[in-house]
């Protein structure tokens, strides 16, 4: 599982961070940091998928490996 951020679009709303703070972190410059690797935990992965579909500007994409 890998997450691709569209940097042109992402403006740091932090919706993803609210749903899966273990994976997403928006800093005070509104830059989104994404964890390099996402643990195999199914509950967390479900929340990561939810974060991606919840992005209001559709800036996140998921690549399932």
């Amino acid at each position, binding site marked *: 599982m890998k997450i691709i951020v569209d940097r042109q679009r992402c403006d740091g709303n*932090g*919706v993803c961070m*609210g749903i899966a*703070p273990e994976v997403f972190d928006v800093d005070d410059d509104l830059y989104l940091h994404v964890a390099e690797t996402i643990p195999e935990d199914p509950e967390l992965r479900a929340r990561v998928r*939810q974060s991606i*579909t919840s992005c209001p500007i*559709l800036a996140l994409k998921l690549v399932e490996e």
Partner: protein
Amino acid sequence: MGTRQRIVVAGGSLAGHSAVTELVGLVPEAEIVWVTGEPHKTYSKPALSKEFMQARNELAELTLPDVAGDRPRGLRILRGRSCVSLDASGRAVTLDDGERIDFDQLLVATGAAARMPGMLRGVDGVFPLRTLDDAVAIRARLADRPKVAVVGGGLIGCELAASVRAFGLDVTIVERLDTLLDRPFGGALGSYFLDLHRANGVELVMGAMVERVALEEGRVAGVHLADGTEIAAGLVLVGAGSEPCTQWLDGSGLQVGDGVLCDAHLATSSPGIFAAGDVARWTNPIYGLRMRVEHWTNASAQGRAAARNMVALATGRQDLRKAFADVPYFWSDQYGQKIQMVGWHEGHDRVELDRSGDVPGPLARFYRNGRLIAAAGVNAPRVVMRLRRQIEDEARAAEAA
């Protein structure tokens, strides 16, 4: 009806989209009928007043991915059709074309509609902003570079003013109160917002009531205020709040009061009927209060939660049954500032305002009986999100005590 379970989802915006996505995944054997209301595929509403209005993105970029890829077997999408009545005891909805659809379960996710004061209705050049069609119409008028009057200094009004200023147009906000964004931010950041809009060239007319519009050759030419002032404007944008879309439920027997009344599991007064999104007034266990939240994150999470509770009820899968306990969150973008609010400030008895410089912008904390219930901040996402978790932790601790 056959043995196959039929679930109707009324409403094609985010709460409906989120619920249908969840239902397709959880009960692929069920028949799901999605009555969307709007003719468009589900799109991002928060972007309408911001990125889309500033022409920084286009429709394709606002459209959410199709549910479960393309066409799951049991899903029937009725786009551009609406539910016009509900027979709760007879377990059926009637659509605008007269079709009656029986259901085993129903999700009410019909959202909210823009409120338009009577004297502003039906006037050429006066627009609310709620739907994509509204946004497209406003954008087309902005191309003529009119002077713009914004009626209402709430979230939509302030975001529209900021977006219009990005094109360098003259903008006047007319607001009934003496402060901007009073209700969404609990009045705490009022002077910050006044300074922000003034510094960006917006004319503010505060404590003023619009009495009527001025017309010229059948089109709007401005607004007249109660004190006699006239503000010239070739385009009038109205941010007068919204109302839950519950008219179609009149006479259904469903309990309604400024939204569809729900318990903590998003179940309405009628078994098997649930509600989610802007239309739902549910009991939030975090606060022990009934509330209706009109924001993106709520619609997304609530649609999903309602779907899971519906499946739990229909199948007996107790692992899916969960109260919807959530600390609300919304944000606003104005002139490049990221303004965020977490929690529910109504009923607060103390506000702490922090402009110490330890945080990048002003930060307000709202308390009730010593407990943190809400927080608002500017350009401080980490702090605000930490406070969101603190609100939740304090609520759980209070419940356990």
